């Protein structure tokens, strides 16, 4: 009937650290020495109304996939994760899976994928439709299409506060003092084109910053500048990338028509722009130069890049391929030079959108 917004992608800085303190917060000051990844968690959102969200795990040294890790670790939960797993993050010792269709956030142990708790986002007759999550200052912030950001306490795993933002928020990113929320307005007849700036101290919106039309994803580079990808209006306004100066947080500049990408993932200063032509464009955000117009250099085909993440330990780039959106998805690991290392099918996972590393 109507097209539902069911897409997904990547998130801002996730810092993977073990050990649960009184507040489930990673120690952000100590320099991090990362061990090589044991494997990757893959979240596949499935089809809309398909109840087929899968959390899979790929073990690197044996090159084997456990297609339905969630069911294996939680055999009594026969229905599985539910409908449209839009996002997943690891924060502290826990994994938070944002279930858009089922209307909840499912919290698992990041080490074992054993269920800890489900946090409901159903509100009487309305599914708030949670979308994306980010962890900051010991809390997890989740955007929902009902124009809010919910604040989850990571020890009680309850929603302790709801912050009003703009229309139909999508991506969210956290700097040390602020949250940035992309207000898509995608359900309105005229899309929104702002980012809500939220003070992490007061947990209130300070102001809205104008960006491209129908903003979607937000990423922050090492200099603290904020990059926002936007869908445009699907007809005469193309997708775009806007940059907010992180020191003033007031205005943004548009990178122009060579940057018609709906999706973005930044690692250090390197931005991978996708959801446009080709697999991904590689852009250096520090020097403002295009590194490569096509990330893949060995001709490996990626049909529909649907999620990108970078192994912080070695810089390898993992690309989730949604293919034709109905058949089993695929993940391909590339070196940062765009040469394929290996790939695997995530069957029975359909529409893989998130890759998280386990060390």
């Amino acid at each position, binding site marked *: 009937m109507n097209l539902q917004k069911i897409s997904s992608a990547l998130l801002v800085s996730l810092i993977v650290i073990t050990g649960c303190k009184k507040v489930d917060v990673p120690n952000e000051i100590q320099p991090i020495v990362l061990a090589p990844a044991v494997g990757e968690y893959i979240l596949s959102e499935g089809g809309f109304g398909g109840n087929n969200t899968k959390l899979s795990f790929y073990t690197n040294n044996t090159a084997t996939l456990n297609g339905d890790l969630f069911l294996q670790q939680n055999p009594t939960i026969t229905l599985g994760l539910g409908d449209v797993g839009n996002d997943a993050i690891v924060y502290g010792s826990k994994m938070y899976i944002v279930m858009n269709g089922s209307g909840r956030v499912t919290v698992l142990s990041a080490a074992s994928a054993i269920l800890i708790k489900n946090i409901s986002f159903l509100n009487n007759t309305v599914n708030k439709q949670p979308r994306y999550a980010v962890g900051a200052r010991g809390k997890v912030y989740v955007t929902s299409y009902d*124009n809010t950001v919910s604040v989850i306490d990571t020890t009680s795993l309850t929603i302790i506060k709801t912050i009003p933002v703009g229309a139909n928020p999508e991506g969210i990113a956290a700097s040390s003092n602020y949250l940035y929320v992309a207000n898509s307005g995608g359900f309105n*007849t005229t899309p929104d084109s702002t980012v809500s700036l939220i003070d992490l101290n007061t947990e209130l919106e300070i102001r809205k910053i104008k960006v491209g039309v129908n903003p979607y994803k937000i990423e922050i580079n090492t200099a603290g500048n904020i990059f926002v990808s936007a869908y445009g209006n699907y007809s005469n306004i193309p997708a775009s990338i806007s940059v907010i100066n992180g020191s003033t947080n007031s205005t943004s500049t548009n990178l122009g028509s060579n940057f018609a990408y709906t999706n973005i993932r930044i690692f250090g200063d390197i931005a991978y722009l996708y959801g446009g032509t080709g697999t991904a464009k590689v852009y250096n955000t520090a020097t403002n130069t295009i590194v490569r117009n096509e990330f893949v250099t060995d001709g490996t085909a990626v049909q529909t890049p649907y999620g990108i993440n970078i192994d912080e330990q070695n810089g390898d780039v993992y690309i989730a391929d949604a293919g034709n959106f109905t058949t089993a998805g695929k993940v391909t690991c590339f070196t940062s030079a765009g040469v394929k290392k290996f790939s695997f099918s995530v069957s029975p996972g359909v529409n893989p959108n998130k890759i998280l590393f386990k060390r």
Partner: protein
Amino acid sequence: MQRKTIAVTSPLPVQILNTLDAFKTNSNSVADALRHFAGVSIKDFGGIGGLKTISVRSLGGNHTGILYDGIPLGNAQGGLIDLGKFTLDNIYQIELHTSGPSEILSPAKAFSYASLLLLKTSSGKDRGDSVNAFNFKFQTGSFGYFSPSFSIQKQFDKRLRISFNAQYQNAVSNYPFVSYENNASRIDRLNSDVNSVRMEADAGFKANENSTIHFKSYYNNSQRGLPGAIIFYNTISNQRLNEKEVFVQGSWKNILSLKSELLISAKYQQDKSYYLDPSYLNNFGKLENEFHQKEIYLSGVYSHTFTTNLKFSFASDAFKNKLTRTDIFAQNFATPSRHSLLNNIAFQFKKRQYEFTGNLLSSIIKESVKVGESGNNFHRFSHGLAFSIQPFKNIPLRTRLFYKHIFRAPTFNDLYYTNVGNLKLRPEFADQYNIGITYEKQQLFFFKRCWFTTDAYYNDVRDKILAVPGQNLFQWSVQNIGKVKIKGVDVAIHTEFDKWKNIEVSSDVTYTLQEALDISDPTSTLYKTQLPYTPKHSGSGNVSISYKNFGINYNFLFSSYRYKQGNQIYENLLQPFTTNDVSVSYFIKANKAVYKLIFEANNIFYNQYEIVKYYPMPLSNYRLTLNISLKQTKIN
């Protein structure tokens, strides 16, 4: 089931169900009854209000046309007509003609589909007898279903007959289904309520022996909940759909001479559909879609018999369809109009032992829009040929062959749906090849009558119109990218036993074997996989026994496993199912009145099954019908 001889003699496969005995198939709607036809699959979203659409021989719903009392029902918007909304209250016969009409004195549009469904109403029936009649029916059943209906018919003189029929239907319809979680507990399907009113008024006028005029007006208004797919952990469901259909139609059949006949038909149809999502997360707090469709239709057919064996017909249809949208979200809606001109010539050469028919159809379609650009205009020819022969004069065995090349035009949704529609779409083509054998025998052993038909077919669909997502799931587009190869076998067997001590027994069995392979893209993992929702094996069976005033019927349906869209993995699997239904009836005749009581029990073995993934079908359910009919035969 009173399937008639035409099923056996026609060069085109025809299946007929007389629905005066509809309870024999435990059917409440046309969609229910069609499940008992060979080669038919009904996509059923469950419950009384759930959408039910037909696909014949895996060609998809857009390739089946529907004639209501001889005049095509239009739906240029989506192309699919919900067959659940036609209750059997006023329909006395359902006919499914594969390929096209077996009667060549038919409108051009009747030739423009890969298969044709004829719905014939009691009030539209051209009866020879002059009667005044009154019929009252009351139905009640599971899920809070109740439906009173009545019809009245008045014969004024030999020439004029007027009738009126009305039905009200109401169902809370929140039927229980077996929980997906533990396969044991029962949960209610929410938001499945239906409330509808249908009224039909007919007038038949027989000016003289050679000239008959029939006029019909139709009104249907329904409100229903759209329960949607079962979403795990989230039972919220509150979307609504209100529909209103009104049409007036008339036809004039004139026998000009012993050799020539003329049939003129006209129709005006106006439909409204209103969809509401009251918890849509936009700044209005709701989403509304209000569409209005209008159709004006004119048709003339002339037939001429040259020799006693050879008959030609020429038909010309002109019609206009328009779609408007009036809700607050209707920004820049194209407001498309389509003018169609169809011309058809057909011939029929008939001898006792063989029959040869064919047609050539020219279709001219012109598109125009109020806003933006319009889709392509086009002019196409399509054709069909059919042949049947009885090789041995004394053996009632016939062989039949047909070939048909036809297309379906892109619908308004295909062309103009916001951000999805594609103006460059071409028609979707289907080629059908069929070879069949039929056999009919009266008085064979202890059979009063038995017949058998089997057809093997091959269908080729190219430029199939499919909606495919682009770089993300926000941006779909409709494209001519599908290719399908369908091979199948349909079998139907009917037997009636000799009456023995007031006991009459008859039975019907159908079986369908289908391989419908997606051959769109050789590089895809879906290449050469069975089409979604298409079982390899399916069938139905019916046994009816009557003893004096009692009747008892048993029905079953079965379907082998299917997959929903995508890879053929467990997650996409739909389990095989069978359903078993029984009904008992009793009638009494008193003076001029007949009182009939029918009790139907459906899905008696409590099987939980799905036809569409995550749309659970009802478990055991019951229906009780009381029918009172009064008839007065006037002999003027």
